[in-house]
């Protein structure tokens, strides 16, 4: 379902190398489109803004500012490729972030606090997965319950923000490995590592291929003898774990835990994943595409900050881009279906 799209049929009808390439990699087209848009955004910003947009420090800041989104987008990609959705990520990020800050403030050592909060995130994911798989609850509703639960738990931990004094956490943000104008922080390295691991798991492990198979056609996957139940639960656990990791990154980034963090972030993450070329119907998508989607989102944000324009434009532009991408995807899917018939 993912990449196997009638190759012999196309090879005879499509004479040019370009059309053969696009037909063969139809599933990748939305991701290529996202890369094109990202390059266009960069070029446009360079040309029409102050002309100093593409600098090492700007691009580095892009990764730094969006590291937490990137981490969540990787987990979300797994869920969406199985055809599910996880609305809870923003709340789980807030909950794990404030919990970490609270544990540290109470004198717990970092070596204990970080694993505890990550397991907390994974457990909320497990709850969603079990509801979806074993109780036939729709992913939307199951993760909605987790959204409420985690948001409330964040406020149970603390009603106000808690400052983090722990040097190990602050180190993650303040350390900069420099190469000329470019720099990267440990949080950035962590985010890129998550992307790398995510891409590897998706493409080169049995579990990853099962994720695609489940998203392509759950019934067929089951008949093939794949372990659908375990896969569907695991993707939510992964997403919850990633949201927990995002909580760690964001707490390091802002130097504090705050229970109001990440309200509406789940939508930003879903938008970034969709812009990156993942089909919400499942079966198609790439972790690296989601990374491009996050960068498109981050670049739009940066440009709007540069222009000093109203923040409301970010939401409108992201909404319009989202629309553009779903229409493009719709056309691609429709063409693929026509070819099958």
């Amino acid at each position, binding site marked *: 379902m993912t990449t196997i799209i009638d190759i012999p049929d196309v090879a005879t009808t499509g004479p040019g190398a370009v059309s053969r390439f696009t037909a063969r990699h139809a599933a990748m087209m939305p991701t290529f489109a996202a890369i094109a848009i990202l390059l266009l955004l960069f070029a446009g910003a360079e040309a029409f803004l102050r002309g100093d947009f593409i600098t090492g420090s700007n691009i580095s800041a892009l990764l730094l500012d969006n590291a937490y989104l990137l981490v969540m987008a990787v987990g979300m990609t797994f869920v969406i490729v199985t055809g599910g959705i996880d609305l809870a990520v923003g709340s789980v990020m807030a909950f794990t972030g404030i919990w970490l800050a609270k544990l540290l403030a109470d004198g717990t050592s970092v070596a204990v606090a970080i694993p505890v909060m990550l397991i907390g995130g994974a457990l909320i994911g497990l709850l969603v997965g079990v509801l979806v798989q074993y109780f036939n*609850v729709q992913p939307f509703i199951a993760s*909605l319950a*987790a959204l409420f639960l985690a948001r409330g738990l964040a406020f149970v931990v603390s009603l106000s923000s808690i400052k983090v004094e722990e040097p190990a956490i602050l180190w993650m943000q303040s350390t900069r490995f420099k190469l000329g104008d470019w720099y990267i922080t440990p949080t950035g390295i962590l985010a890129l590592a998550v992307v790398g691991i995510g891409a590897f798991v998706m493409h080169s492990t049995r579990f990853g291929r099962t994720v695609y198979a489940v998203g392509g056609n759950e019934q067929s996957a089951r008949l093939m003898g794949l372990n659908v139940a375990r896969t569907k639960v695991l993707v939510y656990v992964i997403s919850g774990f990633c949201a927990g990791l995002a909580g760690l990154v964001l707490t390091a980034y802002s130097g504090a835990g705050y229970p109001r963090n990440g309200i509406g972030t789940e939508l930003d993450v879903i938008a970034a994943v969709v812009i990156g070329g993942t089909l919400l119907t499942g079966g198609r998508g790439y972790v690296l595409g989601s990374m491009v989607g996050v960068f498109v989102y981050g670049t739009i944000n940066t440009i709007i900050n540069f222009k000093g324009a*109203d923040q*409301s434009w970010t939401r409108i532009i992201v909404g319009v881009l*989202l629309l553009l991408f*779903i229409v493009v995807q719709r056309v691609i899917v429709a063409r693929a279906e026509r070819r099958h018939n």
Partner: protein
Amino acid sequence: MKAIVNHRLFWPATALVVLVAINAIAQPRFLAITMRDGKLYGALIDILRQSAPLMLVALGMTIVIATRGIDLSVGAIMAVSGAVALTIIDSSGSPDAVATVGIAVIVAVLVAMVLGLWNGFLVSVLGIQPIIATLVLMLAGRGVALLITGGKITTVNSAPLKYLASGYVLILPVAFFIWVAAVAIVSAIERRTALGVLTESVGINPEASRLAGVRSRGIIWGAYIASGILAGAAGILAASDIRAADANAAGLWIELYAILAVVLGGTSLMGGKFSIAGTVIGVLFVTTLESTVVFLGIPPAQKPVFFGAAVIVVVLLQAPRVHEWGRKVGSTFRKQPTDSKTEVEVAA
């Protein structure tokens, strides 16, 4: 007895009664209703009044869900319609004139209708998945609302507007009559004509109903338009309640509460059969749960824990696996020769 238990509104109604009972036991004054100047006051009356915006939104959501869709943009539509209405009133010379408010309400609802039209176009004509199609407006809508209000919170002092949210007709609040009227109109259109049946057929199997001659495109489109109009009206009510248009906070999370209310009322998210009475009970349950939290003195910020727990309990009660467990437990009881036969029947 069995017929009552098996009625599909039995469990939602029981949940509502239990919730009210918990409140009444925890705080006896919860049930108190007092009469002052010919108007009724009390916690229960407040619930009837405060339900209005959610009730309107949930009504639209019921119809959309019945067509196997979902409308995530209702909160954003509320923000836009509130912003439009209050900006018109704010910029007019006579904010206290009934005509000004009337024009503002009509324009705001028309704008909301256009937004619903747009959602319906994406879903029914372009064939985009409802979650994503409405996600576009959910993201962009608040941005539009912020542009309309110029990024600030527009506040107005207008007597007719205030009347909508906190005024009284006879002895009960206006807002209560507004939602009752909306429920009556929607039920009449859906249940006194064939539209309701056609909506259900589209939700159960769009392809089969199209082949059977049902114009599914128009029905789906209409559902989103209805949802838009109702969300627009809810936006005006919400804005008049606080006499301000707050583009960021108006209708925040209401789509989630509305979906919750619809599901609690027994309408399946898979589309098809829907129950307007169930939605009414679901909305009253959600609003009561909300005021319960306040009543029990729990910090409002921690409220979501209760909603999360409530959603989990309710979806578990609806899950086939849990029903199976219930039957198993019931049959093990039945094997033992006990005289508590009636209890067994209830458990089964």
